[in-house]
C-alpha cells in the first residue's frame, strides 16, 4: 500500500534521525567515490584530481545535506526543541519571574481543574457499575405541581408487569433506622442508612457479596423469614469483621432479621446505603398515590434506546390517566439516567454550573494577563537579543514562536504543580466540603483527576501560554524592521499602553481589597467562635431524637400518624427518665432548635395595650422574632434564671395554655424596654401578597423574661428577639434532647444510644455533639474560604508587586540613556527618580485609591450605614500601609536607575 509505505518512510525520516544522518553521509560518500573512480577510469585523472572534480560536480555538500534535512520535516522540530531548551534556561535564569508567574499560573490551572472536576461530576455523573449508562430511574412527574410524585408503589407494580423496554425493574425505599446488635450482656446501637430493596437491585448493580448471599425473589414474599445484608463498614465496625456473622440475628428497627450476606467494600447501591432488607411490596399500601415514597429503577433492555423506553412509559402513563383520573390525571412517567436524578439537571442548573467553569477561565485570563506583563518586561530587557535574531533572518513568526515556547514551558511546569495540588485538594477537601454542604453523597461522587481533566488542564495551559507568551511577543516584535533601519534598539521601542496601565491599576486595587476580605472573614470566624450562648454550653450534650416511620398498610393515615406521635412522645419521656437517672447527669431537657443554631422565624403582632407611641394600633408593624418550643424544664436545666415573671409549668402544656416567655433582647427591641409581663402577642399570617395580622389566631400572654440564650444562629448578625413556647417534647416531630453532664458530655453519648434502644428500638439517636461545638461545620467551611482568600491575596499581592517591579525595571531599561544624559547634565538624583517614576507611582496611588474605595463601598453596602471617624482612619492607615508595600517593589529599580553612569549609558548606545 503506497500510503503505508509513505507513512513508514516519513516516520523513519522523522524519528530515526541518527540513522537518517548516517545514511545521508554514506550515500554522499558513495556517490563521490563512484564519480572519482569513473573520472580516474575514463578521463585518466589522478586520484586526487578526480576526487576534487567529483566534489565540484556534486556541488555544495553542506547545502545539499541541509536540503535533505529540511526535506525530512525535522527543521521545525529541532527549532521547537531549541525553543523549549531556551524556555527551561529562562526558568532558571529568572527565578523570581518563574516563581511568581509560575505560582500564579499554577493557581489558575488548579482552580480550573478542581472546578472542572466538580462541575463534571455534578452535571454529567457516571455510574461506576457495569453498563452503568443503561441503568435508569422511572419516576412519576406531576405536571400540575411541577414536582416528582414519589408514592409510586401502585405504578411500580403496573410497570413491573407491563414494561418490556426496561428489564430488572426494581424499587427501593430509603430508611434511616437503628441497627441493634445484642450480645449476652452488651447492646450496640448504630443508626444506619438502610435500603428496603427488591432482589433485582443486586442484579442491576452486578454485585456479588463478599460472602454469604444477596436477596432472591423468595425473600420479598410476605411471611418469608426476615433477612438483612450488611455493608462492609457496618460489618467491620459492629461485628469486628467476623465471618461468623452469617446466621446471626440482629435488630433492624423493630424487626429481628437474620444476616445472610456482607457486601464488599465500597458497595453502597442504590445511593449511599450500608444495610439492605427486602422490600416486601405486598405488605405495603398499594393504593394509587398512597403508601411510602419509593424510587423505581431498571436497566434498558438490550438494543432499546432511552427514547423508546420513554415512549413506552408515556403510553402506559396515558392509560393510567384514563383509568385513574382522580390520582393520575396529571402524572407523567419519566425515564431518566439513574445518576442524573439526584441533581435536578434542568437546563438552568446545568447552565449555572457550567458558568462556574467560565469564571475559572476568566480568572485564568486575568492571571495570565498579569504574567504577560511580566514576560513583556522581560522580553523588553532582551530586546537587543531579539533584534539581532531578527537581523540574522529570524521571521517575526519565529520570534513569536520562541516567546510562546518560553511561556509554554512556564505554563507546563505550572500545570504540573497545579494538577498535583488539585489532586491533593480533591482527595483531602472536596468530599468533606460537599458533605458539609449537601449531607449524604451518592457513591458515584468520587472527585478525582481523570484523563479528561488532564486534557482540559492542557488546554488551559495552552491558553495561558498564548496569553502570557504571544501577546507580549506581538507587541515587542511590532516595528522591529523600522528599529533595525534606525540602527538602534534603545529608543522608540515598545511602550506600555493604556491596557497595561488599566491592568496594573485594577491589579493593585484588587490587591488592596483582598486582605480586607480576609480580615472580614477572619473576624466573622472569631465572632462565630466566641458567640456567647448565655450558658456553659461546654457542659451540655445534645442529641437529635427521631423515630422510624411506620409503614402499616390499609389503615387510616391520620390514625397511624397520631399513634406514631403518641409512641414517640412516650419514648422521649421514657428516655428522659432513664438518662436523668444516670450518674453524672445534672438535668435533661428538650428544645426543637438548639441555641446558636437557626431558629424558626415568625411574625408577631403586639397586643393593643402595647401600641408604640406615635403609631395607631392598626398600623403597628409586624415584628419578626425567633421562636423555640421548649420543655418547661429548659431554663432550669440551662441554669438560666428567670429575670422577671415566672418559668413555664406543667399547666402551660395544657391544650388551652397560652403562656410564652421572651428573652431580654425581645424586651429591648420589640417592647422598647417596657415591662413585658402580662403583654399579649399573636402570630401573624404569612401570605403571598404581604403578611397580615390574623384575627382568628389566639393571643399569647408573656409570663416571664429570661436572659438571651442563643436564639439567633451564630452566623447571623445582630440580636435576635427570642420568644419561647412551651411544648410536650416530641409532640411536634423530631426533637433535640439536651443533657447537662458533670463529666465530659460526649462520654455519655453511647450510653444515651443504648438507653434509647431499650426504651424503644425504633427511637433513633443522631447528631451527638457538645453544645459548644454545633458551629464546627460552619467554622470549617468558613475556615476553608479564609484559606482560599489568603491564598488569593498572596497571589494577587505577589503578582502586583512583581508587576510594579517589572514595569519599573522596564522603564529604567528603556530610559537608561535619558537617565545618563540627565545625570550628565547635573540633575539631582531626586529629580531623576521623580521624572522616571512619576507615572508608575501615579498608577500605584490610583490603584490603592480604587482598592480603598472598593473596601469602603463594600463596607457601606454591607453595614448599610456610614463611616465613623475611626473607621475612616483605619482605612486611610491601611491604604498607606498598602502604598508602602507596593512602593517596596520600587526599591531595586530605583537603585538601579540611580546607579546609571552617564558615560556607560551613552557608550551603551
Amino acid at each position, binding site marked *: 500500500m503506497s500510503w503505508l509505505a*509513505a507513512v513508514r518512510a516519513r516516520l523513519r525520516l522523522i524519528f530515526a534521525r541518527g540513522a537518517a544522518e548516517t545514511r545521508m553521509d554514506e550515500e554522499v560518500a558513495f556517490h563521490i567515490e563512484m564519480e572519482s573512480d569513473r573520472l580516474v577510469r575514463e578521463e585518466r585523472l589522478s586520484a586526487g584530481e578526480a576526487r576534487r572534480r567529483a566534489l565540484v560536480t556534486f556541488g555544495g555538500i553542506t547545502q545539499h545535506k541541509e536540503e535533505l534535512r529540511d526535506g525530512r520535516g525535522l527543521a521545525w522540530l529541532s527549532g521547537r526543541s531549541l525553543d523549549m531548551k531556551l524556555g527551561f534556561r529562562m526558568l532558571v535564569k529568572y527565578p523570581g519571574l518563574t516563581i511568581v508567574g509560575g505560582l500564579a499560573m499554577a493557581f489558575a490551572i488548579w482552580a480550573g481543574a478542581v472546578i472542572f472536576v466538580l462541575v463534571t461530576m455534578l452535571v454529567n455523573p457516571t455510574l461506576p457499575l457495569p453498563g452503568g449508562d443503561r441503568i435508569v430511574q422511572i419516576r412519576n412527574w406531576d405536571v400540575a405541581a411541577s414536582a416528582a410524585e414519589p408514592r409510586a408503589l401502585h405504578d411500580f407494580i403496573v410497570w413491573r408487569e407491563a414494561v418490556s423496554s426496561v428489564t430488572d425493574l426494581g424499587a427501593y425505599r430509603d430508611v434511616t433506622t437503628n441497627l441493634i446488635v445484642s450480645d449476652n450482656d452488651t447492646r450496640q446501637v448504630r443508626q444506619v442508612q438502610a435500603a428496603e430493596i427488591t432482589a433485582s437491585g443486586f442484579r442491576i448493580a452486578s454485585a456479588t457479596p463478599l460472602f454469604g448471599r444477596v436477596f432472591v425473589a423468595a425473600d420479598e414474599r410476605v411471611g418469608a423469614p426476615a433477612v438483612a445484608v450488611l455493608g462492609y463498614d457496618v460489618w467491620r465496625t459492629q461485628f469486628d469483621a467476623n465471618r461468623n456473622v452469617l446466621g446471626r440475628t440482629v435488630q433492624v428497627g423493630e424487626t429481628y432479621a437474620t444476616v445472610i450476606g456482607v457486601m464488599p467494600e465500597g458497595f453502597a447501591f442504590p445511593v449511599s446505603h450500608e444495610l439492605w432488607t427486602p422490600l416486601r411490596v405486598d405488605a405495603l399500601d398499594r393504593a394509587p398515590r398512597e403508601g411510602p415514597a419509593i424510587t423505581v429503577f431498571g436497566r434498558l433492555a438490550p438494543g432499546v434506546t432511552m427514547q423508546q423506553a420513554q415512549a413506552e412509559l408515556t403510553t402506559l402513563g396515558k392509560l393510567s390517566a384514563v383509568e385513574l383520573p382522580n390520582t393520575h390525571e396529571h402524572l407523567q412517567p419519566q425515564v431518566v439516567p439513574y445518576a442524573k436524578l439526584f441533581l435536578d439537571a434542568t437546563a438552568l442548573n446545568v447552565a449555572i454550573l457550567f458558568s462556574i467553569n467560565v469564571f475559572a477561565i476568566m480568572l485564568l485570563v486575568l492571571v495570565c494577563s498579569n504574567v504577560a506583563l511580566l514576560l513583556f518586561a522581560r522580553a523588553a530587557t532582551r530586546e537587543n537579543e531579539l533584534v539581532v535574531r531578527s537581523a540574522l533572518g529570524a521571521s517575526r513568526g519565529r520570534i513569536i514562536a520562541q516567546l510562546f515556547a518560553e511561556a509554554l514551558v512556564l505554563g507546563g511546569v505550572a500545570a504540573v504543580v497545579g494538577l498535583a495540588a488539585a489532586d491533593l485538594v480533591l482527595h483531602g477537601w472536596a468530599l468533606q466540603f460537599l458533605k458539609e454542604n449537601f449531607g449524604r453523597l451518592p457513591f458515584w461522587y468520587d472527585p478525582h483527576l481523570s484523563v479528561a481533566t488532564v486534557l482540559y488542564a492542557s488546554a488551559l495551559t495552552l491558553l495561558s501560554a498564548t496569553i502570557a507568551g504571544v501577546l507580549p511577543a506581538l507587541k515587542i516584535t511590532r516595528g522591529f524592521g523600522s528599529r533595525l533601519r534606525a540602527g538602534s534598539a534603545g529608543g522608540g521601542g515598545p511602550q506600555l499602553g493604556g491596557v497595561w496601565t488599566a491592568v496594573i491599576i485594577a491589579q493593585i486595587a484588587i490587591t488592596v481589597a483582598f486582605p480586607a476580605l480576609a480580615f472580614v472573614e477572619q473576624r466573622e470566624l472569631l465572632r462565630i467562635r466566641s458567640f456567647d450562648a448565655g450558658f456553659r454550653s461546654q457542659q451540655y450534650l445534645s442529641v437529635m431524637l427521631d423515630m422510624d416511620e411506620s409503614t402499616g398498610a390499609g389503615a387510616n393515615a391520620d390514625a397511624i400518624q397520631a399513634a406514631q406521635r403518641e409512641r414517640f412522645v412516650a419514648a422521649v419521656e421514657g428516655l428522659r427518665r432513664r438518662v436523668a437517672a444516670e450518674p453524672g447527669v445534672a438535668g435533661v431537657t428538650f428544645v426543637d432548635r438548639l441555641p446558636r443554631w437557626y431558629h424558626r422565624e415568625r411574625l408577631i403582632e403586639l397586643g393593643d395595650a402595647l401600641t408604640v407611641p406615635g403609631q395607631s394600633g392598626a398600623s403597628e408593624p409586624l415584628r419578626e422574632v425567633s421562636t423555640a418550643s421548649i420543655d418547661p424544664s429548659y431554663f432550669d436545666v440551662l441554669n438560666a434564671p428567670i429575670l422577671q415573671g415566672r418559668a413555664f409549668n406543667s399547666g402551660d402544656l395544657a391544650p388551652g395554655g397560652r403562656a410564652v416567655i421572651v428573652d431580654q433582647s425581645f424586651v429591648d427591641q420589640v417592647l422598647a424596654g417596657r415591662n413585658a409581663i402580662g403583654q399579649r402577642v399573636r402570630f401573624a399570617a404569612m401570605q403571598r401578597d404581604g403578611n397580615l395580622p390574623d384575627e382568628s389566631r389566639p393571643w399569647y400572654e408573656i409570663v416571664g423574661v429570661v436572659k438571651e440564650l442563643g436564639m439567633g444562629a451564630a452566623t447571623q448578625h445582630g440580636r435576635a428577639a427570642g420568644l419561647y413556647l412551651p411544648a410536650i417534647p416530641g409532640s411536634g416531630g423530631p426533637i433535640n434532647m439536651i443533657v447537662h453532664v458533670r463529666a465530659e458530655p460526649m462520654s455519655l453519648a453511647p450510653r444515651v444510644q443504648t438507653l434509647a434502644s431499650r426504651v424503644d428500638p425504633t427511637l433513633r439517636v443522631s447528631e451527638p455533639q457538645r453544645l459548644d461545638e454545633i458551629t464546627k461545620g460552619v467554622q470549617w467551611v468558613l475556615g476553608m474560604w479564609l484559606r482560599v482568600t489568603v491564598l488569593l491575596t498572596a497571589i494577587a499581592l505577589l503578582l502586583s508587586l512583581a508587576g510594579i517591579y517589572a514595569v519599573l525595571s522596564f522603564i529604567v531599561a528603556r530610559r537608561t540613556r535619558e537617565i545618563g544624559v540627565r545625570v550628565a547634565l547635573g540633575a539631582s538624583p531626586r529629580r531623576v527618580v521623580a521624572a522616571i517614576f512619576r507615572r508608575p507611582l501615579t498608577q500605584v496611588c490610583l490603584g490603592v485609591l480604587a482598592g480603598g474605595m472598593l473596601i469602603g463601598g463594600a463596607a457601606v453596602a454591607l453595614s448599610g450605614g456610614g463611616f465613623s471617624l475611626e473607621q475612616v482612619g483605619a482605612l486611610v492607615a491601611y491604604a498607606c500601609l498598602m502604598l508602602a508595600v507596593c512602593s517596596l517593589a520600587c526599591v531595586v529599580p530605583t537603585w538601579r536607575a540611580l546607579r546609571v553612569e552617564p558615560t556607560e549609558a551613552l557608550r551603551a548606545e
Partner: protein
Amino acid sequence: MSVTIRAQSDVLRGSLDLLVLKTLSLIPMHGWGISQRIQQISSGVLEVNQGSLYPALQRLEKNGLITSDWGTTDNNRRARYYRLTAAGRRALGQELESWKRFAAGLDAVLRSS
C-alpha cells in the same frame, strides 16, 4: 486534445522526478547509477545536478513512489538501492501520458509557426 501548460502535479515536481522514475522503472539502482543512466540514455544531453538528485529521491520516497534498501554493488561496495513501488509505477504511467500530450502540443505549436 489540448494540453494546458501548467505546473505539473504535486506528485511529480519537475522533470527530474519523471526522469528518475523512468530510470528506476527498468531496474533498481543507486543514486550515482541513476545520474549516469540518465546522462547515458540522453547521450549527454540531460545532465543531472548530482547534488539535487538526493533531495529528489528523498521526496519521491516520502511520497511512497519509490522505496530503498541497502545493497552491494558489483565491485562489492555498500550502496543504497532505489526501486519503484506500485504507486510509483502508476504515477509514472500517468505522467508519461501527460508529458507526451504536452510534448505533442508543444510540437504542434512550434511547427505551425
